[in-house]
């Protein structure tokens, strides 16, 4: 795949051909959009959120549309880490794009055991390049974003993961914590290599006809263009608070959206719901950035990163 170097950068010793990454839970294991465009167009792919054991996901309605967004209550349906290592990781293993393994869990022990499996498995083959530690899923009853709400809990789990994971460790934060920057700093202090944010905003919806919540869990995660200004503020706040690279996301559907996150300080960006709005979104964001850099005569991402204070 031909790449223009102006969008490339080396972060955590890894070569990202561009800053555009498919967000976890919206791109399968890298294969989902193969009929639309080549996954190697992207700087990276974060795979569907993994847990130690396979999960069936939530019962009842799992997804609904709202204005400029969607709400989901998938509940981390996934085949489990062992299956990922054996089967699902194969698709991306020989692709020229950075693989982020997104890891969730219910208890600290389940995170540890899953991380050990990933660590051992990746000793003699390429399973993943970056661990994206998910402490921000609002749709599971145990664990999920519980570890991401308070600085002390986030610090604890980051410390335990750091003991196991030798690859770059990125912690995915929840916008639902009132202590976001404290959580971010605590995670940085425990040795995380980077941060990614935001996961979905916890929301609620109901059916006035049946007078019941739409989702079995009551709350569900809001994503899509509706959350962009909220997410952008949070990414800006966190970028000002830490010195490690930040992956910004939240409602990005166009290259302009991506630029906004970079201009408040993000090194990389992720797009998620955008693929559901337009299956070509990832490629369009990359092409749009490329055109913008050419047009504006910008030589590197560094020139524009964090230029808006």
């Amino acid at each position, binding site marked *: 795949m031909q790449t223009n170097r102006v969008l490339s950068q080396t972060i955590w010793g890894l070569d990202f051909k561009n800053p555009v990454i498919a967000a976890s839970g919206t791109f399968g294991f890298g294969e989902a959009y193969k009929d639309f465009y080549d996954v190697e167009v992207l700087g990276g792919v974060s795979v569907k959120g993994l847990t130690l054991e396979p999960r069936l*996901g939530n019962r009842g309605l799992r997804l609904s549309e709202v204005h400029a967004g969607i709400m989901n209550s998938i509940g981390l349906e996934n085949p489990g880490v062992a299956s990922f290592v054996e089967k699902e990781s194969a698709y991306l293993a020989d692709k020229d794009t950075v693989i982020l393994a997104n890891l969730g869990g219910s208890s600290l022990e389940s995170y540890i055991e899953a991380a050990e499996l990933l660590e051992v498995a990746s000793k003699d083959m390429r399973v993943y390049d970056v661990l994206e530690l998910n402490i921000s899923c609002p749709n599971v009853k145990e664990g999920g974003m519980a570890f991401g709400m308070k600085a002390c809990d986030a610090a604890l789990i980051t410390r335990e993961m750091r003991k196991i994971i030798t690859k770059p460790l990125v912690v995915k934060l929840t916008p639902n914590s009132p202590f976001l920057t404290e959580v971010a700093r605590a995670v940085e202090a425990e040795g995380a290599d980077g941060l990614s944010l935001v996961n979905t905003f916890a929301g609620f919806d109901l059916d006035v006809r049946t007078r019941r919540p739409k989702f079995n869990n009551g709350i569900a995660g809001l994503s899509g263009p509706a959350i962009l200004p909220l997410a952008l503020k949070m990414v800006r706040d966190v970028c000002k608070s830490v010195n490690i690279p930040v992956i910004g996301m939240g409602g990005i559907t166009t290259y302009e959206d991506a630029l906004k996150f970079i201009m408040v300080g993000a090194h990389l960006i992720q797009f998620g719901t955008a*693929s*559901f709005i337009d299956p070509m979104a990832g490629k369009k964001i990359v092409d749009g950035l490329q055109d913008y850099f050419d047009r504006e005569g910008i030589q590197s991402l560094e020139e524009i990163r964090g230029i808006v204070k």
Partner: protein
Amino acid sequence: MNSLLEVLSNNKITRDMYLMKLACSELPLNGQFCMIKVPNSFMTLYRPFSIFDADGEVLSLLYSPRGEGTRLMTKVRSGEKLEVTGFYGNSWEEIKDKTLLIAGGIGLAPLYKIARESASDFYIGFQKDAYNEEELANVRELLRGTQFHIVLGGYVSDSVDFSLYDRVYTCGPEPMYRTLNQKHDRVYASFERHMACAVGACRACSVISHGEGGAETKSVCQDGPIFELKSLGEWE
């Protein structure tokens, strides 16, 4: 396919059934579906639609306005264009033995084409007072070329002698599938779920099955939309 397709017509058949024809050179397999979005509208997501008919020039959809998105679709006029992706999912197996096609209401949509091509018995149930005479005449006209039997009121499955058939193809409300599953041991049913992507990424459309292999998830968009009910065991 990921195209803007021109609407050729969009006609009301009954109070809750519309037939939309689009100019489309691609041919789906019988039983596959496509995703449709009205451009420059409030619609964030595409909506999944089964295929009523297709001949490589015209793609026909029979749909019911149930929510905001499908209600907007009823307003679309000839000459406008819709965003369409697809085709997705598995297909009805070619009919070689004696097959019963049985639909509940709008569930007739993904069965019409194979009904016409195979000349199989095609039973369609509507609620007793669903339509007036004019609407029923429109439905009969729509179903021309098939061996159709319209059943008004009660359970359509009560009108059929299942012992005459080697297999059953169905689309309609899921409670009907559970009934059919007890009346025949080779039932193939087309499932419907809310979905965002149709490519297996969002995991919104999963059916949780409890077959011989224990509990597992199957996605309607990729593993389905058609499942042999026996393979699902109990499902939710």
